[in-house]
């Protein structure tokens, strides 16, 4: 097991601190991630999908060690990440890399491509010579399909197109030869015409190198092309997870169903129905009691308001809904 996340939570508390001495504030608790369990094998791509604000990025930041969880366990190659970070932060960062959403913002505008790609090696204090650094940068850029790499070494990020920038980000992530890559919406800011080359690149790297990839997106339509497994998040929790195919074909959580229904389809011959959920995702500081989805759920029952649903499963396919896998609520998606 490359990654094993168990009941992970991240709560932010706002309005604490010194001024609270005067008792003037009532601290606000934001439950950004609220009990998430995930598993990932090497060579697998796990998709993480959910509406804006559901905690995807927070989860990603915890996974790469940018933030520490409030509770729960995070095992990486069987070791607790918290321990890893404590004992050797640098080594941990060598193994887990992240690719960000904004290919411009995640590249330092003042650095050349060569600097950007070699910086991780420098920060790791690997003691490489200048020539070795350059060599590894070129190799990483080639891996990211920036060819010929030499041509780009002295360029600045603003001289590259969005797709090229995202490749540089990938090269930077690759240069340390990580075991796990977390990609937070890596293609959402790219033009349609080039999105898929990036997706394909990531998929190829995962398979070739047998590494793990967590692919975060809010766009369900991009998922089948890359993911093996899928987890749907809602308000800090995974409400449905399983193999990609299973979920697309037999989505059981009403939220997943709504997400699927809301995505427009480019095929003029298919008419989709409109999702029948209402309202917007509530604030993470104000999570509804009972099933957190009940205020928007078309099937909500009094029970949903009262108790938090337990996880139900059918093989690898799991869902957190009182009525999951019940025949009458199951909607078979258009084939």
């Amino acid at each position, binding site marked *: 097991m490359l990654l094993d996340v168990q009941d992970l939570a991240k709560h932010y508390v706002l309005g604490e601190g010194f001024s609270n001495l005067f008792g003037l504030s009532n601290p606000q608790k934001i439950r950004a991630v609220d009990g998430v369990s995930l598993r990932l094998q090497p060579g697998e791509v796990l998709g993480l999908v959910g509406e804006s604000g559901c905690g995807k990025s927070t989860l990603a930041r915890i996974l790469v060690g940018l933030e520490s969880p409030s509770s729960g366990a995070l095992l990486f190659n069987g070791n607790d990440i918290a321990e890893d970070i404590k004992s050797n932060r640098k080594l941990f960062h060598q193994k887990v890399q992240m690719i960000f959403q904004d290919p411009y913002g995640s590249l330092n505008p003042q650095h050349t491509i060569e600097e950007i790609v070699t910086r991780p090696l420098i920060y790791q204090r690997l003691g490489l010579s200048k020539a070795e650094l350059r060599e590894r940068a070129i190799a990483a850029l080639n891996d990211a399909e920036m060819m010929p790499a030499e041509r780009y070494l002295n360029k600045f990020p603003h001289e590259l*197109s969005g797709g090229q920038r995202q490749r540089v980000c990938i090269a930077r992530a690759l240069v340390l030869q990580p075991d796990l890559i977390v990609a937070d919406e890596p293609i959402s800011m790219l*033009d349609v015409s080039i999105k898929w080359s990036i997706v394909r690149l990531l998929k190829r790297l995962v398979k070739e190198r047998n590494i793990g990839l967590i692919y975060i997106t809010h766009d*369900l*339509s991009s998922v089948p092309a890359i993911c093996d497994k899928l987890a749907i998040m809602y308000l800090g929790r995974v409400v449905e997870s399983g193999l990609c195919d299973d979920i697309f074909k037999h989505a059981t959580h009403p939220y997943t169903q709504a997400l699927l229904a809301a*995505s427009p*389809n480019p095929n003029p011959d298919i008419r989709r129905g409109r999702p029948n959920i209402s309202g*917007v995702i509530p604030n993470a500081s104000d999570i509804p009691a009972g099933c957190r989805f009940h205020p928007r759920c078309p099937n909500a029952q009094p029970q949903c308001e009262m108790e938090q649903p337990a996880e139900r499963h059918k093989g690898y396919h799991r869902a957190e809904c009182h009525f999951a896998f019940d025949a009458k609520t199951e909607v078979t998606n258009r084939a």
Partner: protein
Amino acid sequence: MANNQKEVLLEIKNLDAHYNVDGQPVSALQDVNFAIQKGERVGLVGESGCGKSTLLKAIMGVLAPNAQITRGAIKLREVDLLQASQEQRRQSRWNDIAMITQSALNALNPVHKIGDQIIEAIQSHRDVDKQQARARATELFELVGVPPQRLDDFPHQFSGGMRQRAVIAMALALSPEIVLADEPTTALDVIVQDQIFERLDLLQKEQAFSMILVTHDLALVVESCSRIIVMYAGMIVEKGPTHEVVRRPFHPYTAGLRYAIPDPSAEYEPISIPGAPPDLSQQIKGCRFAPRCPLATSKCELEMPPLVSSLASDAARQTRCHHADQMDQLRDRFHDQSFWQTAKTTS
């Protein structure tokens, strides 16, 4: 109006426009021709930077100061807006043509209440007092599904979806005949996007305005527009009834766009179009898509193809490609990424 014969509301003729950047012209629009009929919804798609917003701004008459329209006409019911006086244009804006802008977050003035911003739009054109204008704003908010008491909120107090609705409400304030929507939902989640389109559909049915929908997302156009215009690098490369264009693209670019969208019902993997759009500050003689096009020949590089009817049976079906006639045979190959890779720019 009584009969079925659709009348042409807005007609763009041979429009050329460029931006001056450091003394260099950047050709943002070239030879743009199309017409909108009453009540119809037209989708305008194309990659980022292909001139979609420029076109809409040209129609609204709010181009940046460094932009210049060098040729053509924008006719609203036979009146050429480009010939009209400043004051006439001002009067006509919002009254006849309103716009839903690309980013609703920035389009609302952060220091004024949303209600006041709507009222301002009304009072700039109608001789009504504040009460009446406010009554109209209330009505509009109900129309777009926002509680009217929130008229007194400031923009930052709205969520993205609500802001977008507020902008839609504002666009409808004077019951314009044409609404230009510039990527109204790009920044929003799918579910919210869906809710907004549901509302728009409803409103359009009720108020019978025409609409140009600008978007990156072909799927959205397929679902909501009867006609589509595909732009590439400042030019219209293909246009026609949406379903027909999507089913049977005659321009390689359209085909590329089509197959770059994942289609859960189809067996192909989405493709990507290698390369990037051309630098518009350079003079381009031939077809602007030629460098990325797997069909490109030397003719394409030298000669700009005209926008002509590609289907004898339908004059509205137009394509700008020298090889449109080959498309029927080659179309299937565009599913295949390796076919695209044969284009010139691929490294």
